[in-house]
């Protein structure tokens, strides 16, 4: 297994790199969005899956990144790639502002506090009309860059999954997990939980910010409703819970499975996939709290670092 896995990975990556040369515009778009969801799900996993501090407002980072990048592109003439990176930076700054006070709250209270976070950010974005265009949104100059954005999204997904791998297989990841397991004991053992929580939170905000910026360029138009929807947070949560929170490949599995199902089957039935998301959360919480991968890990004694 150890020999095969890297080879499979390399071949898979190679195929993904060559994909745009063979696929149609629609198909490239499909994979582009898939990468985006993998990136989002994996980012959410970094804070919520590892430290147990469940964030219910994570789409706020996506939206912030989208707006930051859009403003840089339209008002300051930046190229979309560095603009998206700055979107990530903007998201991290937001995470610092919120995380510093909110991470001091206990688990459930943190979750409730972040629930409202998204609404506050959206309200603020709508309010500062002169900068953000308020309800009218921002239109970005159309660029035939779908292929490039495909690679950028892919890179983002790859980066955050690699980060997850590095973290989960290291002692840093273990320390994140002690926060989830028993925060008081972790503190008593000399682990600076406040600092680690913040690191995890900041880390979990960066890629959603970048991806938000890429999304803005790709769709060409953003407005508060489109980049701060609760559905995005819900989707992130469902994907990770379903796939297996706290694992490396769980979020990837969840993202791929649910996105494919969504695009192929559910998108025809309005609201059905959202109802199913709700049902999946219920089923996961009651029957398989560790998600698919977690269940497999338990059943087949697989290592935690998959």
């Amino acid at each position, binding site marked *: 297994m150890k020999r095969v896995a890297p080879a499979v990975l390399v071949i898979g990556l190679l195929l993904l790199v060559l994909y745009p040369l063979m696929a149609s515009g629609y198909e490239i778009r499909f994979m582009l969005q898939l990468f985006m969801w993998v990136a989002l799900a994996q980012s959410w996993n970094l804070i919520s899956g590892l430290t*147990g501090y469940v964030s219910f407002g994570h789409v706020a980072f996506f939206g912030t990144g989208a707006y930051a990048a859009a403003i840089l592109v339209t008002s300051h003439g930046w190229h979309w790639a560095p603009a998206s990176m700055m979107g990530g930076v903007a998201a991290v700054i937001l995470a610092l502002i919120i995380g510093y006070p909110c991470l001091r709250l206990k688990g459930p209270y943190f979750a409730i506090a972040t629930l409202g976070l998204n609404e*506050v950010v959206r309200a603020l974005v*709508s309010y500062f009309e002169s900068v953000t265009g308020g309800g009218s949104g921002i239109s970005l100059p159309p660029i035939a860059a779908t292929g490039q954005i495909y690679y950028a999204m892919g890179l983002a997904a790859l980066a955050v999954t690699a980060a997850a791998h590095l973290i989960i297989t290291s002692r840093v990841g273990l320390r994140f997990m002690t926060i989830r397991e028993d925060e008081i004991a972790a503190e008593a053992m000399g682990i600076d939980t406040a600092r680690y929580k913040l690191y995890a939170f900041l880390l979990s905000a960066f890629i959603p910010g970048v991806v938000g910026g890429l999304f803005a360029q790709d769709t060409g138009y953003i407005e508060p409703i489109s980049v701060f929807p609760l559905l995005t947070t819900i989707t992130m949560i469902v994907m990770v*819970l379903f796939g297996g929170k706290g694992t490396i490949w769980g979020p990837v599995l969840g993202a791929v499975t649910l996105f494919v199902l969504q695009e192929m089957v559910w998108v025809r039935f309005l*609201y059905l996939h959202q*109802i199913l998301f*709700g049902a999946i959360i219920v089923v996961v*919480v009651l029957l398989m709290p560790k998600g698919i991968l977690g269940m497999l890990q338990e059943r087949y004694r697989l290592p935690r670092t998959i």
Partner: protein
Amino acid sequence: MSVSITAEMVGQVIISGLLAGALYSMVALGLALIFGVMRVINIAHGTFLMLGAYTTFWWSQLLGINPYLSLLASMPLMFLLGVLLQRTLVTRVVNAPELSSLLLTFGISIALVNLAQLAFTSDLRSVEYLTGAWLVGPIALSKSRVISFAFAVAITLFAFWFLQKTKLGKAIRATSQSSEVALVCGINVQRIHLYSFGIASALAAAGGSLVAVMIAIQPEMGQVYTFKSFLVIVLGGAGNLPGALLGGMLLGLVEQLASLFLTTQLSEAVAYVLLVLVLLLRPAGLLGGRST
């Protein structure tokens, strides 16, 4: 801002705040009940409010009579739905870590809200009944707000009487103090959980029926009320039932005050910011009482 604040404006704000506050208190009481008795964080609370509002809408559409009478339909209906959900799903996370109940009820609320979207579409609905306001001196009292205030107060008082004086009510209070002791005293704790969740849902539904004549009805309307109920509870102290009353009034006042100076969108955001502030500064709430 060069707006002069007159005494009339202050009076208006205070009155409006109290009128709205009673509603918040009633709805939050339900959430406090669930948390106090079962240690469950019910994010789906607002969903019952939404369904109560729709009940009122269909009531007035199909029957055409006084929408306030729909309370007789919405409250029992949602009581039953609450009992059903508790019996089948919520009961399994009663002794689990709070995050489990949070996620579970989150999933339930998503499913219910979208079922409502499917069934009712997301078109905005409204129930026209009482319009206009009574003028008391310089202060305008919106008729529907006053009536809903009256109902909210009546229902809340009834709820408190119920909890203090009836056998079931006392059993509920005992269970929220300590379910182990309640068990030993022969109280059927499972049954108490059922009733509590049902009563809480009925209270939320009542809130929905009362706001149905005042604001637009759509499937996602409940979310903000869930959040405000949390805020009320945190303001008053989790599990502290009288505190929920105080918290509701406080929220009503603060919101109205904020709307004097801020746009409506921002004053909604005020509720969220207030929650975070209170959580940070006094996690035990303003009146003390048990925290998680």
